[in-house]
């Protein structure tokens, strides 16, 4: 009663053409809220652009590498001392035996080009060349022993200092205390670049190659850890999808509603929020210490990530099962379908887009996960060898993409810093591709009801 009298007195009759104070306040509040919203979205977009920009700016360099064209004389006196061409004899010459050949080859180029340098002899070429070069030539000679005695032109990796100099990472002032390279080397690099001997090219070895030791940043690639990630994802997919979908279908369609299912449901939701490192230590205890599976193996990584991904898959699968209208279940039961027939013939196909999307998002999350891998030894393992065969792919030690990136970021040489950013670009490309697949599948399977 009092309310009615009050509002009656406070709201004098106004025409529609004049806005009253109350309406103006409401309109202003709405306008302010819209401004907040726009500001929030703007801030988000700004940070996204900064993030992507800095990743690209820092990482693009890793896809380019500096190479030196060196004609190498495969000296028979040094490579095949017996002169018989016997492969066992040739194998006795280690990588160190090839190093002088490469250095002399480059020194010959310098003199041929008529470049004046203060460097005295072939030994000084060491700073320009990557230690990976001689190994590459040795592999070539062992594969083609008949080429001994010829001069073969190789495209060899430049040292990481020279690479950094051409990319602007290494400066003349910055190398004052550097024992690996001197200003004279940089002068020579400039001259060789002008002559076309030193040049930058696309670095496929970064994508497909193996990791290298700490001192050979120019040689390191993501390829082996990519295989490690692939086998991990395969494990996750093969385990988490069937287990997750079966668990969700049972909980959603068959399980009775009682205290036990309530407890299970609450716990699944909670598991989705458990820090991933907890799954790591669980994996260490259960799979490595108890089940004695090998350390650093993608199988163990995959098992740990399966545990981590299961709640995500179960939650999204249950949500998409819930979204199927109950009238479809009634319809199937009404014509005499059994519970299981109604689920598998009607409910599951309709929930499929949601299940697939959830699974792929879960996989993408697992692909980028680093923390649990710390505890099972996949971080810190130097993945220099490709696994031999599928069984080895699961069982032999390997790294994974995010673990490899973390490993590179830890290393001292700034050349590795660039590679860490480059690795992030590759990882993001994979995540983007998986999300695109999720969207495409969703579109393809989506049906109206």
């Amino acid at each position, binding site marked *: 009663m009092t309310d009615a009298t009050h509002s009656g007195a406070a709201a004098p009759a106004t025409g529609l053409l004049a806005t009253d104070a109350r309406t103006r306040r409401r309109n202003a509040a709405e306008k302010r809220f819209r401004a907040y919203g726009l500001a929030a979205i703007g801030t988000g977009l700004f940070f996204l652009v900064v993030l992507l920009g800095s990743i690209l700016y820092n990482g693009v360099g890793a896809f380019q590498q500096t190479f030196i064209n060196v004609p190498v004389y495969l000296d028979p006196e040094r490579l095949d001392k017996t002169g018989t061409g016997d492969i066992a004899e040739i194998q006795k010459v280690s990588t160190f035996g090839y190093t002088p050949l490469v250095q002399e080859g480059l020194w010959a180029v310098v003199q041929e080009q008529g470049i004046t340098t203060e460097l005295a002899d072939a030994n000084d070429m060491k700073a320009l060349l990557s230690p990976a070069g001689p190994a590459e030539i040795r592999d070539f000679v062992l594969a083609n022993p008949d080429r001994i005695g010829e001069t073969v032109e190789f495209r060899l990796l430049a040292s990481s200092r020279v690479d950094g100099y051409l990319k602007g990472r290494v400066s003349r002032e910055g190398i004052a205390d550097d024992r690996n390279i001197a200003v004279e080397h940089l002068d020579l690099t400039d001259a060789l670049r002008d002559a076309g001997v030193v040049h930058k090219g696309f670095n496929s070895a970064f994508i497909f190659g193996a990791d290298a030791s700490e001192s050979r940043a120019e040689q390191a690639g993501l390829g082996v850890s990519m295989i490690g990630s692939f086998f991990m994802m395969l494990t996750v997919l093969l385990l988490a999808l069937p287990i997750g979908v079966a668990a969700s279908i049972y909980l959603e369609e068959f399980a*009775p509603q009682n205290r036990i299912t309530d407890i299970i449901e609450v716990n699944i939701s909670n598991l989705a929020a458990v820090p991933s490192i907890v799954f790591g230590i669980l994996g260490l205890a259960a799979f490595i210490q108890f089940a004695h599976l090998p350390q650093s193996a993608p199988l163990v990584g995959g098992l740990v990530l399966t545990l981590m991904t299961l709640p995500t898959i179960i939650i999204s699968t249950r949500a998409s099962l819930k979204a199927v209208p109950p*009238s479809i279940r*009634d*319809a199937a039961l009404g*014509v*005499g379908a059994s519970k299981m027939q109604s689920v598998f*013939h009607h409910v599951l196909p309709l929930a499929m887009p949601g299940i697939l999307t959830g699974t792929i998002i879960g996989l993408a999350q697992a692909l980028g996960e680093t923390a649990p891998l710390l505890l099972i030894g996949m971080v810190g393992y130097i993945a220099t060898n490709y696994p031999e065969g599928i069984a080895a792919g699961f069982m032999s030690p390997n790294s994974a993409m995010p673990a490899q990136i973390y490993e590179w970021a830890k290393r001292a040489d700034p050349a590795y810093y660039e590679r860490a950013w480059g690795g992030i670009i590759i990882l993001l490309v994979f995540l983007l591709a998986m999300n695109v697949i999720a969207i495409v599948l969703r579109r393809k399977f989506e049906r109206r009801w």
Partner: protein
Amino acid sequence: MYDSPLRKTEVEATDTKIVAKDVQVYYGETHAIKDVNIDILDKTVTAFIGPSGCGKSTFLRCLNRMNDTIDICRVQGLIAIDGQDIYDKRVDPVQLRAKVGMVFQKPNPFPKSIYDNVAYGPRIHGMAKNKAELDEIVEKALRRGAIWNEVKDRLQSPGTGLSGGQQQRLCIARAVATEPEVLLMDEPCSALDPIATAQVEELIDELRTNYSVVIVTHSMQQAARVSQKTAFFHLGNLVEYGETSKIFTNPVDPRTESYITGRIG
């Protein structure tokens, strides 16, 4: 036109199809159906009427054990079809539902082709040995559903693309495809416009020649038009059950009279 009965309303058949004795239904603590006793006749349309929440849909869903899917629902008493207790432990509800078809309030075709909608039931019950037999069953069902002429040229197009009335007739065709003996309809016309409703009502009357039809409806006019027997439910009790003409013209119970004249409901 809509107020006059479509066909004659006398009960022709006298065979009892479904017998219910002292049926009680509980939802948890709620006593939803109290002491219902009813004999439903074969080849007859029986209408269940009553205000919302009176238990008529609940009772209908007891007749093919659709309430089994609700965890907290308990059914007591006897419901027998052709003298066989359908709540006997040996009865498989899946087998029962093939015998007692159901059409729901909202048309709910599967998001599949018209053909697959109708063929689904016969397929899972193994009623056809080959494609030709299945085609025959589908055509027969669609003809009984009075929709064959409208869809015969587009059997492979999605069932969800039909209009509301067509969808409901498709659902009826789907229900009769499994050759049921009883057809339960839970407010089959509540989502349809008057023209589609008239078509479905005409269809219900035709179905009477083959099946025992039980229909739940909110529209008393509809009950008067299509049914031969009417049961009036109120607050979980079966208040009155008798021939439709008698219920609507000369009800015994004062509650029935109040409801059909619009004083309660």
